[in-house]
């Protein structure tokens, strides 16, 4: 047992850190620190910088543009990226559909889609959840019917994150209505510009609109847009959801936020002195830092395990990451609310689409708190995660 990173790993961390220092646009960083949303342009600009460096799709196999890093290097990269902070690569393309395509797609599909994911020529979104299919995803109803050389798609998806920016969608569609629910689903990709696709924003409690409803009305999709085999979509979906195990804890994000809290708590006054001098607040902050340290160690255990034994059999501890990671992210936003006190209240009626920065930075703290309630709901709610632990780990 050894906690230390090797000299090479430490040098790698320095290299990554200095690249971020030199290349992340300062305004992009500042907005992230302040909890603001970024514009599409700001995100794409950064991702292209990252891709030019060769780090845009770092965990892909080398032949598709990946880096060939060890699992520890990936861990270091992610931690530095999250804690700098810089925008993370768009998960829908890079972490979700990309690996499905290079694992289950045919050569033509790989050639067609993978380079455009890496260069962010295509912005991808995820068509999984439906109004009647949340945690019970396999009950989805969106239909794809075969008609000549086309799929005709009808139905509705929801919670589609950043669909307003998207060029492409990967979609779970029912292709065999007579099969048992998991069996008749296919994984189909198509252009969001197709005729019959309508995107309607959903305003969330933070005042933002990063999620959408997406309607499909006789959308015609070329038959070759099916990824893998027909009716095997559920397997690909499970692969996709299980693929990104270690990033989900977002340890770097919480670290960055805790540093910000400590910094603000040294400035904002309570009882005539900085709130950091209040013992009760300080202990709450310490409690959160300790939880995060434990999570970081748990994550390192999983990373070290993957590095040594491959990704085959996940370390049971990996199921801890989503639950604790989301809880800690939420606690950090609660602590920020506590620091800011009564100044949490003012509401920026312009929302936060990146166009209006007239409001004081404090305006984003309450929205960020509201927004972060999502992290224990998405990606398999924490209750679903507990079901998974009970069944897969504890054998109940």
């Amino acid at each position, binding site marked *: *047992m*050894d*906690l*230390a*990173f*090797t000299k090479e*790993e430490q040098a790698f961390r320095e290299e990554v850190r200095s690249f971020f220092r030199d290349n992340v646009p300062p305004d992009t960083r500042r907005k992230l620190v302040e909890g603001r949303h970024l514009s599409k342009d700001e995100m794409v600009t950064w991702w292209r910088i990252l891709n030019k460096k060769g780090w845009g799709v770092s965990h892909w196999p080398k032949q598709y543009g990946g880096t060939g890093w060890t699992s*520890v290097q990936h861990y270091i990269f992610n931690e530095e990226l999250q804690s700098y902070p810089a925008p993370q690569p768009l998960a829908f393309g890079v972490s979700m559909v990309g690996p499905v395509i290079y694992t289950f797609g045919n050569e033509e599909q790989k050639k067609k889609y993978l380079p455009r994911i890496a260069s962010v020529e295509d912005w991808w979104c995820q068509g999984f959840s439906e109004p009647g299919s949340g945690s019970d995803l396999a009950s989805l109803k969106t239909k794809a019917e075969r008609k000549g050389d086309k799929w005709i798609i009808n139905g509705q998806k929801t919670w589609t994150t950043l669909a307003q920016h998207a060029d492409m969608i990967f979609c779970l569609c029912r292709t065999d209505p007579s099969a048992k629910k998991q069996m008749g689903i296919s994984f189909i990709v198509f252009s969001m510009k197709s005729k019959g696709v309508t995107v309607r924003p959903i305003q969330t409690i933070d005042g933002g609109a990063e999620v959408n409803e997406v309607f499909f009305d006789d959308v015609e999709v070329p038959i070759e847009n099916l990824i893998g085999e027909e009716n095997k979509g559920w397997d690909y979906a499970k692969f996709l959801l299980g693929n990104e195990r270690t990033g989900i804890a977002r340890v770097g994000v919480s*670290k960055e936020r*805790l*540093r910000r809290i*400590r910094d603000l708590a040294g400035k904002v006054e309570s009882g005539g002195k900085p709130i950091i001098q209040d*013992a009760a607040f*300080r*202990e709450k*902050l*310490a*409690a959160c*830092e*300790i*939880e*995060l*340290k*434990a*999570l970081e*160690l*748990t994550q*390192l*255990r999983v*990373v*070290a*395990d993957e590095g*040594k034994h491959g990704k085959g059999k996940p370390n*049971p*501890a990996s199921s*801890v990451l989503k*639950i*604790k990671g989301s809880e800690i992210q939420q606690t950090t936003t609660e602590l920020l609310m506590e620091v800011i006190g009564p100044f949490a209240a003012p509401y920026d009626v312009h929302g936060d689409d990146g166009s209006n920065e007239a409001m004081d930075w404090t305006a984003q703290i309450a929205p960020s708190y509201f927004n972060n309630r999502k992290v224990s709901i998405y990606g398999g709610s924490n*209750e679903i*995660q*507990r*079901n998974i*632990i*009970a*069944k897969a*780990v*504890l*054998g*109940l």
Partner: protein
Amino acid sequence: MDFDLNEEQRLLKDSIDGLLTDSYDFESRKKYMKEKGGWSKTVWLNLAEQGLLGLPFSEADGGFGGGGVETMIVMEALGKALVLEPYLATVVIGGGFLRHAGTDAQKAAHLPAVIDGSKTLAFAQLEKNSRYDLFDVTTTAKKKGDAYVIDGEKFVVLNGENADTLIVTARSKGDRRDKAGIGVFLVPASAKGITKKSYPTQDGLHAADITFTGVEVGADAALGNPDDSLALIERVVDEARIALCAEAVGLMDESLKTTIEYIKTRKQFGVAIGSFQSLQHRASDMFVAAEQARSMSMFATMAGDFEDAKERANAIAAAKVQIGKSLKFVGQQAIQLHGGIGMTMEAKIGHYFKRLTMIENSFGDTDYHQRRVADGGGLI
């Protein structure tokens, strides 16, 4: 970065797990508890025979040169089997003082008997009002010619009844809460002026309250600097905390395992109660708590070797906080999921809960250590 055990460490783990599986089932433990001082001399000599009592000592001192990871392995195994024998008091704490501060003569006088199992040690530190502050010492060690005269009262001294030698913290200078002026002394348990009141503790161990009245020891009784040994005490107590974290992980592992087995077999409403989602989620949360504790126990073990004393203390305090939170949740929920049977002395789960609970109140509880981390500037 590596969290795996090496080959030798795996062998060590197999050997102690094997030994305890053979000799330490719940029924045997009840018998050992009734022996003098509350533990089994036979088991102790078995541990000695396997080399476990000499584990952390250097080869020059007759030991096996084990480090923090080796102690973690042993403590986890001892926790898993709910072992009564005084490994913490004798090898970790007593041995720790000798390792860190013992002169060659002191080591020669004590270590061989510790390693071969013929003698045990106890740490007399807690005072009536000191609570968790190691520098809060009123027991005095007054210089008298070449000798020291020790006067004071110490409480809840684990293994105090059986120990052959007591390791006593006492003040040679200064006032009650001064950080300077504290020494550590090796005192024979049979010394004149010592009176003991022994009793079982809530978790089935044995302890004693010990009064020192004009107890005379030689100058060679002082471990380290008799006027300035707080740093030594902190170091050794930190090692005890690390060991307790590992023991708690073993206890939690076994508590969780026992609870899962129970809810898989216990039937109500015609089905195993483990099929109910409310209990599944509770069990999952116990698993999460136990894994977080394991991570921090490993962290504490590795932090034991940190060069920077402040960083080391902070890391170990943080670990004790996580352990405290986890053990409370796992322990309480293990009883809850067992239902009525969990309330009985007959079932083993309650005994695990009791030991876990006492660990929380040893060498600083969750609040105490959380305050230390908070006041020390945090962890990030």
